[in-house]
């Protein structure tokens, strides 16, 4: 038994696991900023998309079209390499953020998740039955109260499963930020693969951590679904 434990301790997987684990906080840091900001902006964009102001709605629609039609990698590179090459951006205050791979990653991930999230929330808002809104209006709700008490709670509740999917895609998307020299889990795993030529061991170490993160995300969304759908609970 002790021999077995020793052999695990000396194995490459064990060693790599802790190496990759040191990148976990960088991955989580990316998510901690881009997910909440992305959520709020996605809601605002969805409201703008369904609004009756044609110009606003069109602008947001084309934004969503462009972001959903191009790979995230292009967006990350455009922000990291592309914007950095423009002279007046290098001289402006924006450069304080754009010279850091971390902030470039956060900006790119946020831009990306806002487009996907806005489209998801739009589906939720448009699927609300008219009678719900009408009953709110007949009770004398103002526009803001209607939004806060009826439209948003129902819309968010409805789209929780698909927004959960988007959250998992975001966890996976953080790996692309490693291509801008930001050392999160995939970046470290890549370094290990290149150095030791033991790809399977590095993959297992990083893969377990990503699966664990995604597992937590799924549980979190499940909890939210349970919390905000009290009428669907079996025993209450």
């Amino acid at each position: 038994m002790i021999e077995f434990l020793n052999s695990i301790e000396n194995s490459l997987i064990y060693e790599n696991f802790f190496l990759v684990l040191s990148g976990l906080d960088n991955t989580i840091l990316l998510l901690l900023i881009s997910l909440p900001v992305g959520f709020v902006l996605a809601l605002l964009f969805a409201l703008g998309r369904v609004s009756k102001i044609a110009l606003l709605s069109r602008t947001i629609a084309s934004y969503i079209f462009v972001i959903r039609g191009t790979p995230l990698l292009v967006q990350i590179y455009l922000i990291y390499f592309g914007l950095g090459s423009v002279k007046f951006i290098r001289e402006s205050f924006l450069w304080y953020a754009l010279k850091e791979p971390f902030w470039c990653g956060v900006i790119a991930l946020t831009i990306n998740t806002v487009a996907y999230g806005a489209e998801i929330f739009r589906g939720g808002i448009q699927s609300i039955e008219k009678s719900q809104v009408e009953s709110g209006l007949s009770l004398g709700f103002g526009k803001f109260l209607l939004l806060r008490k009826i439209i948003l709670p129902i819309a968010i509740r409805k789209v929780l499963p698909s927004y959960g999917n988007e959250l998992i895609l975001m966890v996976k998307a953080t790996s692309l930020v490693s291509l801008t020299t930001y050392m999160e889990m995939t970046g470290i795993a890549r370094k290990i693969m290149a150095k030791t030529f033991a790809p399977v061991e590095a993959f297992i170490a990083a893969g377990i951590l990503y699966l664990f993160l995604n597992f937590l995300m799924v549980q979190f969304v499940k909890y939210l679904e349970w919390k905000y759908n009290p009428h669907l609970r079996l025993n209450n």
Partner: protein
Amino acid sequence: MFKFDKLVFGDAGWGDEFLIATLMTLLVSILSMGLGLFLAIITVWAKIIQNRITRFIANFYTTVIRGVPELLVIYLIFFGGNAVVMSIAKVFGYNKYIELNALTIATIAIAVISATYSSEVLRASYLAISKGQIEAARALGMNKFSIFFKVISPQVIRHALPGIGNVWQITLKDTSLISVTGLVEIMRQSRISSNVEHSPLTFLITAAILYLCLTTISGRVFKTLEVNYSKGFST
């Protein structure tokens, strides 16, 4: 800022290089989508036959690949693919060094990823076929193959087309990750060109526009296919 003159065809610009790169992106997407659909059919088959071991393997495969970043899967196949092929070759008594070319690695890597998404789509559309259809076919004395090709496949295709269209878009965009293996597709080409010309903005925007064209055009194609396959089913 945006240098249009660098995008002309011929020796002065990068137009022709980008055209070839775009074709390469399309080639990788089509090849890996095809291989992915093939793998997906096997995965679905493993999930729907009543066998615990195959179902466990298939579920394990789809859960792990979908829960792990695409880039990591590509790294694994890029760095580890050669070793696996060589160890298989050794079983057959071939001991020389084998190196897979970039296109093969790219196709396999993207196919492995895309198959997990396709399998979910195909499984859902298989389950959408009512049991009565298969029973009716059996009652007519059709054998397993004709049931599969004449009853199941046409309906699965019709149900699955919208989902497969989505998977195609994801696959197309995932090919951009293949640039890390050195295969010259749109993304790699734009990095090469911008390193030579010191103008990343020009070539990255070009890449974005090319991807946008590819996704838009293929979106149209799938719309037409959907209309074609749902003839007789008013929607």
